[in-house]
């Protein structure tokens, strides 16, 4: 897109903003994540993850990110953290684990930082 729209105008380093364009890119992938609230769907997903991704119409890149549990790529490809988290929960991963991934700190250091009062800017 040639003209900045939505969050493209925001200057917020290190902060993904889930705007309309992002939501459009991630629409089918987020639908997949939402479907995982259902136990039968989780079973079907786990039985053949790639087929399940194709059924939901994910792009090749999205499918790759989901299969590899590349959490950062899922966010970059339009995932909403609230949706992505449903896949993480299924895997037994916590929000602290994801925080460790997004920050590159690893889960233990991330958790320690939170217990020490959270992270600061800069």
């Amino acid at each position, binding site marked *: 897109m040639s003209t900045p729209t*939505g*969050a493209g105008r*925001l*200057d*917020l*380093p*290190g*902060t*993904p*903003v*889930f*705007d*309309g364009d992002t*939501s459009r890119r991630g*629409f089918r992938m*987020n*639908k997949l*994540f*939402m479907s*995982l*609230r259902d136990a039968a769907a989780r079973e079907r997903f786990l039985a053949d993850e790639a087929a399940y991704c194709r059924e939901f119409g994910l792009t090749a890149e999205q499918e790759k990110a989901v299969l590899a549990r590349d959490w950062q790529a899922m*966010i970059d490809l339009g995932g*909403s*953290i*609230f*949706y*992505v*988290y*449903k896949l993480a*929960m*299924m895997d037994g991963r916590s*929000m*602290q684990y*994801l*925080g460790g991934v*997004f*920050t*590159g700190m690893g889960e233990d250091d*991330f958790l320690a*930082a*939170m*217990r020490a*009062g*959270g*992270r*600061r*800017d800069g």
Partner: protein
Amino acid sequence: MAEVIWGLATSHVPSIGAAMDRGKTDDPAWKALFDGYAPARAWLAEHRPDVAVLVYNDHANGIDLDFVPTFGLGTAERYEVADEGFGRRPVPDVLGHPEFSFHLVESLVDEGFDLTVFQELAVDHGFTVPMSVWTPDPGDAWPCPVIPLLVNVIQYPQPTAARCYALGQALGRAIRSFPGDLTVGVLGTGGMSHQLAGTRAGFINPDFDAMWMEAVEKDPARLAALSREELIRQAGSEGIELIMWLVMRGAMDEQVTRVHSDYFVPASNTAAGIALFDNRTPTG
């Protein structure tokens, strides 16, 4: 006429509900948070309203991204507790109050608030955790009927802080114009500062949270002037949820009495806050 007797602001972090459901409220990681709730809970138990309005957002459980309403209001008789993936929380379904809902819808639409009206809605932790903060042991039923007021905080552009505050003020007028004597509690939920994704994940801003906690009581107009960008910068991408506190605050009088407040880090990746305000005219 109906009267807002109290306003409760509280975070709605899912792990707060999970800690209660799993009996971990005395664990070292949680005890201070729940101790901080105790005075508010005691006061609330003595001041049960006839009906409550709970301002919250859904997290991919009751609604999906097919359609994202800026503001939604429920008119159902009953709101089911959502199964977010691993069984529903062991708490009662929520009873609504359709007659009161219809009155609110009509008043608010007349005032130019473009509500989406929900006749069916499953409520998730964004709703049930604040209910548990208010009433830890509901037994078979919550203390009173509760009406969900949904706010979009997940998909940019969220409503502005100013619009949320204006909605709250209109909600207050709508409540006061109800043709029946009811006492009403209003809950604003979400926040405080937190960010879940990005390299800034784990961001907490205690200075901003302290400013917010003070100003929400004494100078809410100052908070209503904050832009989306400023809110995300200062409170984190998910901290923008704090705009829902302004809906609650707008429904109350200009002068309120703070009953109790507390602040705790971390609940999961979030700064958790609670603030309880008495809206009854002080009798002197």
